[in-house]
């Protein structure tokens, strides 16, 4: 398994994620992988027993995973949300905003680039799945 960049303190899940279909068929898996065409909302009734949700990005230009991530966080999911696949450093800041807190990219990041990407933005214009305060909120605080 490639190195995973994690922004969590808990122990990572030590078994592989199953597909959404097999997860919905069996009750004991605690890790599941969402593909771009899967409906993240199918997992919502089961979030309590999930410790890891992987969201696969077969190609970085397919942005469905951003919606999947936000939907899961909006539904109250607090476990690990890991972006896997064609995950690039220039998408990291947006992914963090959508609720991803772990990354398993096909090609390892340069950690200097990661630091620069995550520190770059002085503000945000939207309420999203992270804890950043939107600019409009700061203006009217």
């Amino acid at each position, binding site marked *: 398994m490639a190195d995973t960049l994690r922004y969590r303190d808990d122990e990572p899940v030590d078994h592989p994620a199953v597909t959404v279909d097999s997860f919905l068929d069996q009750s004991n898996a605690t890790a599941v992988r969402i593909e771009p065409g899967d409906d993240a909302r199918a997992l919502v009734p089961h979030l309590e027993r999930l410790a890891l949700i992987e969201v696969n990005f077969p190609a970085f230009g397919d942005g469905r995973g951003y*919606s999947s991530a936000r939907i899961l966080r909006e539904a109250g999911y607090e476990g690990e949300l890991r972006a896997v696949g064609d995950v690039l450093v220039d998408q990291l800041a*947006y992914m963090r905003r959508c609720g991803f807190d772990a990354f398993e990219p096909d090609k390892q990041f*340069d950690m200097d680039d990661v630091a620069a990407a995550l520190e*770059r933005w*002085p503000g945000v*214009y939207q309420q999203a799945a992270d804890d950043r305060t939107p600019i409009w909120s*700061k203006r009217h605080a």
Partner: protein
Amino acid sequence: MYAYDQYDQAMVDARVEEFRDQARRRLEGKLTEDQFKPLRLMNGLYLQLHAYMLRVAIPYGTLDSRQMHALADIADKYDRGYGHFTTRQNIQYNWIKLEDAADILADLAKVEMHAIQTSGNCIRNISSDHFAGAAADEIVDPRPYAELLRQWSSFHPEFSYLPRKFKIAVIASETDRAAMRLHDIGINIVKNDAGELGAAFYVGGGMGRTPMIAPCINPFVPLDQLVTYAEACLRVYNRYGRRDNKYKARIKILVHELGAEEYTRQVEQEFEHLLDQGVEPPLAELDRIRTFFDDPLFDTRAAYEIDRSDPDFALWVDRNTVPHKADGYVSAVISLKPVGGIPGDATAEQMRLMADLAKDYSFDELRVMHTQNIVLPHVRKADLHALWTALEEAGLGSPNLDTVEDIIACPGLDYCSLANARSIPIAQRISERFAKTGKTGTLGQLKLKISGCINACGHHHAGHIGILGVDRKGVENYQLLLGGSEAEDVSLAKITGPGFDEHGIVDAVETVTTVYENERQDGERFVDTYRRIGMNPFKEALYG
């Protein structure tokens, strides 16, 4: 006009540094061209036939003289001394070097401008009514809503890798001057029976190879739910828009395939959910933005009468000025369509002159029209002669607004790597032909739009007369279309029949205008006559 605060400025500055870093990593080989491409596109940088093209955002087409001067300086410093105003109220430069791009963005940031999301599969620059804040017929100024959405859509974390590009237009009057229903989302700010303002949402319009007129999916979204509703529209699209085929990836295909009712149902469901997620800025933010768009201090004693003794001036006044909400004022259109010229092009010197004239005569404000002209929105009638005199001297006094010479044309095969045929020379030959025959004036309002390929950047589907350039066995061939409109009488043009060569298409345009002249009844525009008599008389004249 909207002015950045420290937050807006910091975001734009950060974007410049981000792009500088991305360009560096590209040059160091850390980014492949495939990886770099969407990043440069989201900063407006295209690779065209001969060079990079940079598209700079002009939010809702509004800019001040300082910004217009900066655009002129960029044309001189980094390009070939001119720029091209686009059908989405932006400007693009055609001869840019990749290594200069970050410096240009830095120059733009100094005057509160940017190229953020002017390309790529993301939410593009928001367009609006070019007479906003001036038009006699508007309910309110639509630009505060456009600015609210500009901020919401900038660096949107969920919607930056959409199936395809996404264009939003906002208007606030019955008259549609922004092709609102030919956008991915068209928003019309309306008043309900209780006198409250709200937003009518039209979703799934567009031109391109499959033109569609957007259906209204919600006639009244309250203003304190505007962003949330837009977010719902986008989320449904991001999740379910087609990604298997680039040509079927626009939201119009999703809305069409699902049906407007089913798409609306899904949006409403998502909307209900999102209402609890706190994504809506407070109305206080809209109020804050509105204060930037307060009316300028109009001169209430401004003269009404115009000295029309100079017939050339009188003609320009009749053709190129439009009524204003304030007594004694008009909006004056500076035509970028000189006979035989390139539609939408302006030299750096012309930009500087327009900037200075805006400062002297229009409260320091200019607008870019989607028809590729420039507006000085608030001009005292008393100043019109001085304004016109200055424009005439600079070759900017063409009296041809909304006439057959006021042609929209895409860059075509002269610049664009997607084009099948040239557009610019066809526009040049047509305006020369009608100027020569002197028929420009007698034909009245006649919107002619030319695209050099089926992607329809020249809006040919929406032309009273449309021309589509295609490649027929290696030879440029031009199809003729009739009966389109991008305005409140929106309709899609229909093809007349077999195409023409580059000379034949100019004759064909003249032929259909002759049919109109022979058939028209009192007060009918070309498109009205076409709608009344149908295609056949035109076909007979063209193909006998």
